[in-house]
């Protein structure tokens, strides 16, 4: 799992310090064992044969008509507070791709 956890960290784009790898690996293993409970699941004995006996007391209006409304103003109090420190020429500065 030692190598696997490093692969998983890369996949999840997470940096885990080398000294914590063993601990986090143990925890991931433990939880995955709990997830393996799902392997025991079979629909046999659980499947509901009919829904005729179900009583639906209310019908809800699940879909509503579109309600056009103006977009949020992009100035004043609704303007997101970007980290202006990391901007260049009015654009957010990002790492190179």
């Amino acid at each position, binding site marked *: 799992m030692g190598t696997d956890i490093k692969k*998983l960290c890369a996949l*999840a784009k997470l*940096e885990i310090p080398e000294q914590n790898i063993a601990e986090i690996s143990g925890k991931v293993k*433990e939880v*995955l064992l709990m997830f393996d409970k799902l392997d025991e699941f079979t629909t046999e004995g*659980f499947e509901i044969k009919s829904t005729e006996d179900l009583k639906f007391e209310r019908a809800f209006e699940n879909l509503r008509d579109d309600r056009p409304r103006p977009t949020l103003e992009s100035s004043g109090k609704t303007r997101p507070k*970007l980290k202006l*420190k990391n901007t260049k020429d009015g654009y957010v*500065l990002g790492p190179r791709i």
Partner: protein
Amino acid sequence: MRSLYELPAFVVSRKIQDQEISAEEYISIIIERIKEVDSKVNSFTSLNFEGALTMSRAIDKKIKEGINTGLLTGIPVGIKDNISVQGLKNTCASRMLSEYVSPYDATVVSKIKEQGGIIIGKLNMDEFGMGTTSEYSSFGPVRNPWDLEYVAGGSSGGSAASVASLQIPLSLGSDTGGSIRCPSSFCSVIGIKPTYGSVSRSGLISYSNSLEQIGPIARTIYDLVPILNVISGEDPKDNTTVHKKYDYQLNTIDNLLTKKYKVGVLNEFIDDSEIEVARTSQKKVKQLEDYGCELEDTRIPLADYALASYYVIATAEASSNLSRYDNLRYGYEGSPEGYEWNSYFSESRSKFGDEVKLRILLGSYVLSAGYFGKYYAKAQTIRSMIKREFDILFNKYDILLLPTMPVLPFKLGEKISQPIEQYNLDVYTILANLAGLTAISIPAGLSEKGFPIGVQLIANAFDEQKLIDAAVILERAEGFEKWIPRI
């Protein structure tokens, strides 16, 4: 004579509207109480004393002018630190968002303000709502007001502890797998997880969108209902909200005696709990029977698979939701210049706490190619079957009764490095989230050593009224609103 901070919100609000006291006077007393108590409990992450005083003066002015000030007139409300309040920090108790200030109000916050409620501050929690004890917070753990060496429950620990310790009468929390009900049980307050789609989630920082819901916490059902009415309703900013009339009532006992609710008792869960929890739950069964409810044993056959299904879905959604924290739009200081995108992104995310990292890793794993069918697809199948089991149960019963938590509050640090032990504690609360149902935790009693025990009631989607009715009965039966920790 009881101090104003000890009185229920609905009593104080009436006094303010009748001009027996001013909103400013009340808020000043609450501020003093918070200053006196919160250094012990650690329930707040940030305070809004100046803003609260300004709002209270505006309310007093309106009252003098004869303007209607709303259902929550002059009442201070604390907001969990993952719900946006304009101009206040919204940290989710994470280093990742330590300096983030929300530029807008969540819909629930706007509604509270419109009805005269006063936002007094933001409340401590497990980082991004991931936890059962409120120990995973960059602000340090929330302490249980009944014993400061014990956990307050989580993830809305600050929301429950602040109300239980008489700092504020009302708070908002969020509930993804029991995060309102668990701390309500551990701190002896009443907390409801509303039906999925009945309360807007606009402005809630998402952890697991398909499971979570905002809900209120109070000391008495008579305070809980007004704020539930205020925050419920359709919201164009949240397309999962349902168009429906929400008008919950506080019925009289005489009226409730005629209703004769059918209650399904989930005895397997009661028997699997610690002995004092089981004994107290049985006492609640008897009390409901005394008030004319019809009781019957029942079970949820698929419950054995619920925990694994829940954590597969929750971690999968968490890994997706938290990918937005790239340290460019939100985050801590640090220049991206000279970095390649992936290494910058990975390094930035090292600021997440250990539990959050664990859940991101698990979510990435269960969603990865080759494992999707084994975990995620199966979990969703089980989820839909659990929902169908509940449909059948609610064809027969109005309410289901079970403990909120299988155990009493435990010591701080006792389970902090044991994820499975903590996850297992959620086994009774996750069911309502998986099925999108409403559920409430009601104070049920105190253990021999004086620790709170909560009982949980679950009702069908949009049947909050039945839970409120049962809460009125149980509050009448034992007067739990008078159980106050000595702090």
